[in-house]
């Protein structure tokens, strides 16, 4: 390449064009990011709608078959398996910048309602079919006032992975949903988080996997149960 040398005169036109090109690059990046975030929101929304249909379907099925067909209920249980992965998807969206916060809060409230519905239905199934479910209600806060909530979350994730049929229901204590407030009142859960409700008893503070296994020995039975049987025992 041949030498080129010029005066250093400022060229304001070039500065402006470079600025516009850079702005277009950034605008494209923000647009692309928003596009993918919206797609994620839509995915979560679709999953929640599916869960809602699942729950309604099970309720209907349950009503139709009544108590004499518990065997059918347990074997064909359709308690949604999608509800648990949804929690981690929502947690992930919470960490992403550029996600519409109002939309996310709406999804979280909807998710909370679905969990409560799932919980109630499971209790109904358990009562009528004489099952002994093991589930954990977990109350947390992500307002920065719960230092142990992150660790508690890991312990519960670890338990869920160890016992795939265990159902952990996670509730944001501060989500401001009347149905959740009722659940909090029923179990008398105080704002001392993290809080776990196991077998209708409330436990405050951080509990490791070992602690929880000691509190709920029925978990050990889950370890030996097969995935083809009912979701809850």
């Amino acid at each position, binding site marked *: 390449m*041949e*030498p*080129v040398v*010029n005066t250093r005169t400022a060229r304001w036109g070039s500065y402006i064009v*470079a600025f516009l090109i850079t702005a277009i690059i950034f605008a494209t990046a923000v647009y692309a990011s928003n596009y993918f975030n919206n797609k994620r929101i839509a*995915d979560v929304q679709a999953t929640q709608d599916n869960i809602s249909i699942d729950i309604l379907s099970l309720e209907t099925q349950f009503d139709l078959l009544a108590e004499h067909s518990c065997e059918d209920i347990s074997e064909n249980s359709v308690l949604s398996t999608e509800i648990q992965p949804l929690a981690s998807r929502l947690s992930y969206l919470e960490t992403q910048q550029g996600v519409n916060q109002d939309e996310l809060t709406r999804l979280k409230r909807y998710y909370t309602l679905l969990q409560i519905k799932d919980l109630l239905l499971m209790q109904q199934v358990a009562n009528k079919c004489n099952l002994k479910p093991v589930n954990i209600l977990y109350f947390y806060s992500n307002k920065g006032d719960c230092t142990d909530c992150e*660790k508690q979350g890991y312990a*519960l*994730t670890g338990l869920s992975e160890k016992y795939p049929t265990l159902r952990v229901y996670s509730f944001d204590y501060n989500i401001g949903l009347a149905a959740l407030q009722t659940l909090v009142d029923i179990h008398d859960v105080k704002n001392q988080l993290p809080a776990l409700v196991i077998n209708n008893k409330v436990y405050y503070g951080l509990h490791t*996997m070992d602690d929880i296994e000691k509190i709920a020995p029925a978990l050990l039975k889950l370890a030996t149960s097969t995935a083809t049987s009912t979701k809850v025992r």
Partner: protein
Amino acid sequence: MGIGAIITFTLLFISIYFEVFLLMAFLQHRFSRIPAHKQAAPHPLPHVAIIVPCYNESETVRGTVNSLLALNYPKELLELLIVDDGSTDNTLEIVQEFKTDSRVRIFTKPNGGKHTAMNLGLQNTSAEFIGCLDADSSVASDALLKVIPVFNNARVAAVTPCILVREPDTMLQHMQNVEYRLSIFNRFILAAIGSAFITPGPFSFFRAAVVRKLGGWRYAHSTEDMEMALRMQKDGWLIANAPNAIVHTSTPRTLRALFKQRVRWTYGWLRNAIDYRGMFGNGTYGNLSIIVLPSAIFSIFAGIYFFARIMYGAVRASISLVRRIEYGGIHMPSSFDLFYVNTSAVLFVVYVSIALILLLISLGSLIGTGSKKPPLSTPLFLLLYSFLTPLWLGAAVVRAIFKTGVSWR
């Protein structure tokens, strides 16, 4: 959006703006070459002196002088002034081997720094143009004939060459090889927009009358080549680049040596920037003061910030992972889920920035070697070098704040 994200976006915006600006300048100038008649070597050729300042260069000086003696230039018009700056090894003994050549003159003096060696050379020659070649570099035989015609423009006070890494061997040298390709692009394009502010030690040439008028070389925080360039710019001269004048230079083999060299360069740049702060943002100096000098300072702090942010993120992720294992045990990750692929705007912008850097490296290769193909070690450079750079940037900033000074060796 948090304050951290705002700072990150702002710094990324400025970084990409500068890259885009340079690319635009390249596209504008690559077709506006100097006309052929102005590129022709002047007739008769001018008297040229090349000063080789040496301080403990026994391992490389022989190759350096041999390459200068092999320059394609009339013997009677070329002087080699080898200045031994108080070496404590056998550099002087080695350079004495060349004293029989009519072009070579050897000087020795107590150690005083590169600027004193250059000034001694300046005092002992009447050449029209003075070059400098660090004793760790060697030149292509036609390099001088590529440099001299650029001085046909009477406003050009200095001409810089195209510097390539000599026989890269270690991983660090291979990474520097890529970095030097970027520098080739920068040197070329900054000259094209009249904003070069460094005349590097390996084979930069100066109009002797201008150097004398400006008072010769000065002590300048161990970066005399930078100070001289800034002084020339301040006095209204142009600094050109001759991309066909090829020089190969030795680069540090070890991280320790590289760290020391780069701390010196960055420290020198920061201290010189303080000395010449009046040029920043001053419209008189056009592109140099409005875009180039502020960007050069900005890049130091942006490099440190990005490094700190990445390290902070890595530490947080590590703590999180340790906690996850401590409280949740070790579990196989679930199958790949597109949902969790990071699609943040910052990441997209980082990808664009990396693509632009890759393009600049490729253009640097094109300018320096004629091939657009970047060196094979480019991925290594992109992956690792940005983690090494902040080490010396940080050290240099601290030293510059406390004015500790730096040594050459």
